[in-house]
């Protein structure tokens, strides 16, 4: 019997591993398509990386700079040149910061955004899901109204407003936290909340809706009829199933949060990756645009893969092979 159990576990392990490898291999064509679309799109937008906004350079100087960076070649050839480097792990130089490669920029700034994004996701989950559960279980009570009021407020107040508000209250008026920058846990508190609160509100509303649906299911009624404790009914039967749509959202949410938020990072002077996504497009810093886009794609694919794995853990009826 133990040998048979071991065999089943081993089979399941192999199935998961096969599934993982297959999904990760899919990353290659996905990155290929995304890279091609991004590359040709960004080159179709007018403008060059060398002009100062108010000071266009002489045309002959721009022509020489374009030749230096091979920007005078046909776009398809530039793409092949870029992909040749990318396949060797070289994402190219930043045109604007000549001593920094895109690899260096990602290596230096992605960990900062990753930590901030994960903390804010923690804020979102810890606040949003309990709020949604309480709201659903106490539907149409004061607790429900208060929770949903908080959720709507969280969605309605953008980071651009919440960040300076927290800064004014907690740092300038009360002196409890440093105003900005990155380097200690105290400096992470306000940005993590600013970024996480809006997401918490989304999760709260989603959890509430999902929970309301699940607690009306027959199996929940059956569990209650059999005398299972309310706590066990909610935690083991209702919540587990109610979390499926929430977990679905968590994948893309995680990818969006950990790859950086331009607004929050700018407000709190955090050296993350967020600003590079928007700034590189404005600056036509092509290698940085490509590098950050490919990074975002990879994180998104991996986050969705994690979500699919989580499905089978939450609900064993969902088989990985089928997804």
């Amino acid at each position, binding site marked *: 019997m133990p040998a048979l159990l071991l065999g089943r576990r081993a089979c399941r392990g192999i199935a998961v591993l096969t599934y993982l490898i297959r999904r990760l291999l899919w990353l290659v064509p996905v990155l290929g398509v995304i890279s091609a679309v991004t590359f040709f799109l960004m080159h179709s937008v007018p403008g060059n990386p060398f002009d100062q906004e108010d000071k266009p350079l002489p045309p002959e100087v721009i022509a020489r700079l374009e030749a230096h960076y091979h920007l005078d070649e046909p776009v398809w050839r530039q793409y092949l040149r870029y992909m040749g480097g990318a396949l060797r792990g070289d994402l190219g130089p930043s045109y604007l910061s000549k001593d920094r490669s895109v690899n260096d920029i990602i290596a230096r700034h992605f960990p900062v955004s990753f930590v901030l994004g994960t903390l804010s996701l923690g804020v979102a989950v810890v606040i949003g899901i309990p709020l949604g559960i309480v709201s659903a279980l106490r539907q149409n009570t004061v607790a429900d109204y208060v929770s949903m009021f908080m959720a709507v407020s969280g969605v309605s107040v953008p980071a651009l407003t919440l960040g300076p508000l927290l800064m004014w209250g907690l740092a300038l008026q009360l002196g409890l936290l440093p105003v900005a920058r990155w*380097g200690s846990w105290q400096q992470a508190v306000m940005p993590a909340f600013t970024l996480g609160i809006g997401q918490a509100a989304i999760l709260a509303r989603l959890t509430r809706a999902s929970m309301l649906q699940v607690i009306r299911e027959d199996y929940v009624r059956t569990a209650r009829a059999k005398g299972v404790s309310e706590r066990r009914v909610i935690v083991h039967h209702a919540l587990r199933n109610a979390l499926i749509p929430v977990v679905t959202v968590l994948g893309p949410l995680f990818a969006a949060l950990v790859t950086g938020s331009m607004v929050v990072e700018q407000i709190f002077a955090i050296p993350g990756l967020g600003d590079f996504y928007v700034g590189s497009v404005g600056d036509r810093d092509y290698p940085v645009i490509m590098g950050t886009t490919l990074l975002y794609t990879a994180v998104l694919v991996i986050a969705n893969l994690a979500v699919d794995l989580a499905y089978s853990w939450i609900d064993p009826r969902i088989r990985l092979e089928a997804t």
Partner: protein
Amino acid sequence: MTRVLGVALALLVAVAAGSFANAAGESGATGQAGISLALPGDPGNFDPATNWLHILAAQQFLTLVDWDYGSSEPIPNAAESWTVSEDGRTYTFTLRSGLTWSDGSPVTAADFEYSFRTIVDPESAAPISYRAFVIENAAAVNAGEQPVSALGVHAVDDVTLTITLTEPATWFLSSLSSMGHSVPSAAREAHGTDWVKPENIVVNGPYKLVEAVAEDRYVLERNDSYFDAGNVDIPRITFFVVKDASTQLAMYEAGELDFIESIPPGELDRIRDDDMLGPEYYNGPRFVVYYYFFNMAKPPFNQVLVRKAFAAALDKDTVTSRITRGGEVPATTMTPPGSTGHVPNETGIGIPYDPEQAKAWLAQAGYPNGDGLPEIELGYNASQLHQNIAQAIQKMWQDTLGATVSLRGVEGRAYSVNAAQGAHDVWRMGWGMDYPDAHNIHMELFHSSVGQPATFKNPEYDRIIEEAAVASDLATRQQLYRIAERILVQDQVGVIPIYWYADNSLTKPHVDRPQTPQFMKLFKDWEVN
């Protein structure tokens, strides 16, 4: 699953510790030996031989000459003296004796020769290369048609440097205050673009980079090998990268910064009225002009009377007092105050706000009350400020002239392309001076040899600014630039100057800084009480 979560948490803690450790630095130097400032963006590579001059570079590398903004005269820096040949084309500089790099090696004329060659070397791919094109063979070297050794910059011996120009240029010394910074050839050749990193950098200016954390902070310390180190008061300057102006102000109010010069316009009234912040507030001129170009290649702005009418219908006082509200100065001419060749508003040159005259000119042009006037497209690079200004001007032109004006905000780099192609009827531009001389504006923006065909071109104007470029007498130059401005902004109305930008800053009381306008702030002149 619990094990997986545990591992993920441990990983997060490790990454967090790493990112915190990497970014951790002092959170403000107030009260410490030094000052803390804000940079509105990461400097990237600040090698002054290949990039636009950055404030970090200006503190670390010597130019041949400096500039006295009071007397509008060049003053010695690395060069203690200089002479100009009779034909005005060859400058001979004599360097101070005993100049050294921070690694102990001597600063020689060969270092300056190397620096100028680097600027124009096509291998450098330096966007600033065009600024050196006045030097003999520079354009040909940059085009790859001649070797760098053909450049008209030669080290005669260790302390003597000659620079030969393509033509006489009275403004050349002024331009040297912001170009041709000496860079260390040995460090540069040994480390490539990494030579500007703290572990590799070698300097000869008042300060030296000791710490650099990209997108976070840059720390300069006094360079004891600087020739005048004894008179440099502030031992340490920490620049924090803080892109948001509101955050800069909050950090300043919390005592985490000692000086800021990016103040949100909406906060200026509060600052001026505040008992504590008011005395720390400074407002002065900056070397930047805000102006509108006309597309003169097609109706209606191919008629000078129409251009005059639109200029006279633009109330610049309203723009600066109701919209920008940062102490900007309405401008009737182009060259900003403080520059050689500036023509003050008081001279009467330019077109003042006069709605009745504007209507009369438009009627004379054949568009009484705007009848028959085609729709005007006003372009600007998309930003809230430019949009607000454009909306105000749109209303002025509609109310006064009966013109139908449509606004078109275009994203920055795409806008540069539009502007270069004359894609709008009227479009917004700004010009920050590269050096404080009217030549920089007139020759690089409005001479017939530059710009695109739809903009102002005038042979008489060309002749006058060419004459001003070589005139050796300051009074003569001033007079010539008056005539040039009159043609440009009054007789032909090639552009409408709108305002000169203002320097709005806050400085903590324990910091003494020069209150005169400066092209680039030099902290060697600052003191801490």
